[in-house]
């Protein structure tokens, strides 16, 4: 049910995506993440429109991590930060990270090398249902996305929601 990818530029890295809905223990998970006992980035699934969005965020995070130039302190927070269209870290974590009453959660795990974590370890910690990514369109909140990314109607005429989002994610440091 989870999706696994290899980053083209970093073939030694594997990215695993897991989607959960009807989550009841978001608060607990958030605390665990802050303590560092969950080795994945916890993301508000309503702000995700396609796995590609997460791959782009993860790729940039790993790139900066390897250069020692991340803007945040950990790879996981960097992934969350990269989803945001602006450069405020706290705002990014608030909007794209999870809050205590979120019910749809997406977890992104980046692993290097041979060691592969057992997804069950993560799934067992989530009090909710793991679902396939086919369900993502039902979870995505397009209105909130348009507002957060400040998408213009002119832009939507020339491309998809995903394309507008990716563009903003990748060029936010030069605008």
């Amino acid at each position, binding site marked *: 049910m989870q999706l696994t*990818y290899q*980053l*083209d*530029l*970093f073939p030694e890295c594997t990215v695993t995506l897991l989607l959960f809905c009807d989550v009841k223990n978001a608060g607990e998970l958030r605390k665990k993440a802050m303590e560092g006992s969950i080795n994945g980035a916890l993301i508000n699934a309503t702000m995700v429109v396609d796995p*590609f969005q997460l*791959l*782009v965020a993860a*790729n*940039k995070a790993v*790139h900066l991590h*390897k*250069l*020692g130039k991340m803007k945040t302190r950990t790879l996981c927070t960097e992934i969350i930060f990269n989803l945001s269209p602006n450069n405020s870290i706290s705002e990014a974590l608030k909007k794209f990270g999870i809050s205590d009453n979120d019910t749809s959660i997406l977890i992104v795990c980046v692993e290097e090398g041979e060691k592969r974590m057992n997804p069950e370890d993560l799934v067992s910690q989530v009090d909710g249902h793991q679902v396939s990514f086919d369900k993502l369109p039902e979870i995505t909140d397009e209105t909130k996305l348009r507002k957060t990314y400040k998408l*213009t109607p*002119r*832009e939507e*005429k*020339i*491309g998809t929601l995903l*394309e*507008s989002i*990716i*563009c*903003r994610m*990748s*060029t936010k*440091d*030069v*605008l």
Partner: protein
Amino acid sequence: MAAVPETGSEEGEAVAGTSGLTVPKKQEHEREREREREQELERERERSRDFLQSLELVKQGAEARVYRGRFLGRAAVIKERFPKRYRHPVLDMRLSRRRTVQEARALMRCRRAGISAPVVFFVDYASNCLYLEDIEESLTVRDYIQSIHITESDPEKLSLLARKMGQVLAQLHDEDVIHGDLTTSNMLLKLPVEQLNLVLIDFGLSFISALPEDKGVDLYVLEKAFLSTHPNTETMYQELLKSYSSESKKSGPVLKKLDERSSVSEILQGLQG
């Protein structure tokens, strides 16, 4: 000029200066970190080179190399502004970096204004590589015009295309984006061509400017490129300008500048005669 507090083991000996200060361990740490950064940078640059080598090289220019391949599951075009050995290294880095940044910025600005241009997937500032969407299933306006000339020579089709081009360029200039290298090879038509879905590409020489002069030059470059690549298309270009003029809110001064430049150019040509 504070003395650095010693913690734990005495690595990096404290050298007593005349005032009793230690050689700042901090400085040594910083130099160490700098060296690490440089190593990391070089390692990542090599990684980029290795990755690009595995892709299909599409174009080798003086400024950049263009590759095609897959990136994170999508068809992508990667533009690499490689180091130029004939330039001073610091200058080279700054120039390549600046041009990469300008290109990314122009692309984003276009999209925000509803002008079709490739999506930016990733910007690698360490190697000055731009990872862009590959516009598949398309042909250049250049090839389209040539195919029409060869097959059917339908003036109506060219007229519609000209009008569309004028409209898109008007939008571009109204956003104060100067393309810098307008040619019919830098404009793509997504299939089916009848839809006239025009996409601008190669913003490598682009910059932001509100000056009518700069916009005039942009159009002038296109005129020269147009007429040299596609003979007997003077009417087509005039239609383009007409469309540009009616679509753009700021076209008056631009066309005036263009006119001035054309006159100067004609005078110069006459002198060369």
